[in-house]
């Protein structure tokens, strides 16, 4: 079937097999490989992207299901000349990554959280990361990064 998705603000249109998963579509067809496949069983969150602004696990969504929708991946966060978005900067600043495999999904989950809840408590941040596993950092610096991104967004307002 033909699938038309606005990915990071640009309209894409491709003929795909009906059973194509969104994550494979993004990586193999659209050519955006920041989104990782970790568990492939909707557990780890490495494949998290935003659909119409909300976090979803793209290994458990068909490309066909988001035909006509807006999808945002990690590649869509940085500015035109490559300057990092505030959440990305906060992750860098707070050493919120080691191997970096979970990071694209973490950043997108965190972005979705702050859109829904701009001033989360630490407990709310931890609860919102339930669906994102990190094998390296122990989460502490990830939580710090998200708290600080929320604070700096507040300062900028």
């Amino acid at each position, binding site marked *: 079937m033909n699938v038309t998705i606005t990915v990071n603000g640009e309209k894409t249109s491709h003929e795909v097999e009906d059973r194509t998963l969104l994550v494979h579509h993004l990586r193999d067809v659209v050519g955006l490989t920041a989104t990782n496949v970790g568990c492939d069983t909707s557990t780890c969150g490495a494949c998290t992207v935003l*659909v119409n602004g909300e976090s979803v696990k793209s290994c458990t969504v068909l490309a066909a299901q988001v035909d006509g929708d807006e999808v945002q991946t990690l590649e869509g966060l940085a500015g035109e000349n490559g300057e990092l978005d505030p959440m990305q900067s906060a992750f860098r600043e707070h050493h919120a990554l080691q191997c970096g495999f979970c990071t694209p999904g973490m950043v997108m989950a965190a972005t979705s959280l702050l859109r829904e809840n701009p001033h989360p408590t630490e407990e709310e941040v931890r609860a919102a990361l339930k669906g994102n596993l990190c094998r390296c950092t122990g989460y502490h610096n990830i939580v710090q990064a998200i708290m600080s991104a929320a604070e700096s967004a507040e300062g900028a307002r």
Partner: protein
Amino acid sequence: MIPPKFAYRRAGSAEEAVSLLAEYGDEAKILAGGHSLLPLMKLRLAQPEFLIDIGRVHELSYIRGEADHIAVGALTRYHDLEHSELLAAELPLLAHASGKVGDPQVRHRGTIGGSIAHGESASDVPAVVLALDGTLVVSGPSGVREIPSSEFFLGPFETVLEPDELLTEIRLPRPASPGWSFQKLTSRAIDWAIVAVAVQGSSVGLVNMGSTPLRATATERALADGASITDAAARAAEGTSPFADRNASPEYRKHLARVLVRRGLEEAAGRAG
């Protein structure tokens, strides 16, 4: 893992979904959020030839206050239930339990109708609907029927829904008693409940205590006969036959049911004031 081949059809309305079901019959499955069905398909535990996507049938996504009940459209997502002001005011048990399902990503996709139609006894919301004495509204080729939730669940992944029927609405009577509680014990944060308990007044629903969601009938009867919370909760596992898995033995599940029902009834009584 890529799901097995199927043909994708998108329904534009509930009526179209029902006629597509009639056309494709047993070979077809409804696709709502896909968060139960797609994982099963990846594992080849389900191999429908047709998927009928109702994801765009917006007329099935709503939460409405009616004269004597709250009506919830089958396609309403957990995320919308969790954040509904109407539910926060009138049915906080459902809003709260929805917020405890999976993780934010799962709640952005998963729907109340999918959870009920799937008929998994480890799911949270079916036991809530059972405790609230909900009614399921179903559309099929021969019209609409209303099924009490007490008659809906038959066994593991088995309900009275026929293959050509669409669940359209969940009706929840306004509770007579305001006290509520939802107690869910998981091994890790992301896990499903080992056991969970939904309490509204003196109605008690049990998650994962057998092959279907259940009511703790012995506890409810004891409460009606004037037993104390402690004595009534001690009977929470009567008549249940929970299974063993890597998280818990049947005996441990029975123990948890008794403890969580006691905590739930106490919290509900506290909230009722």
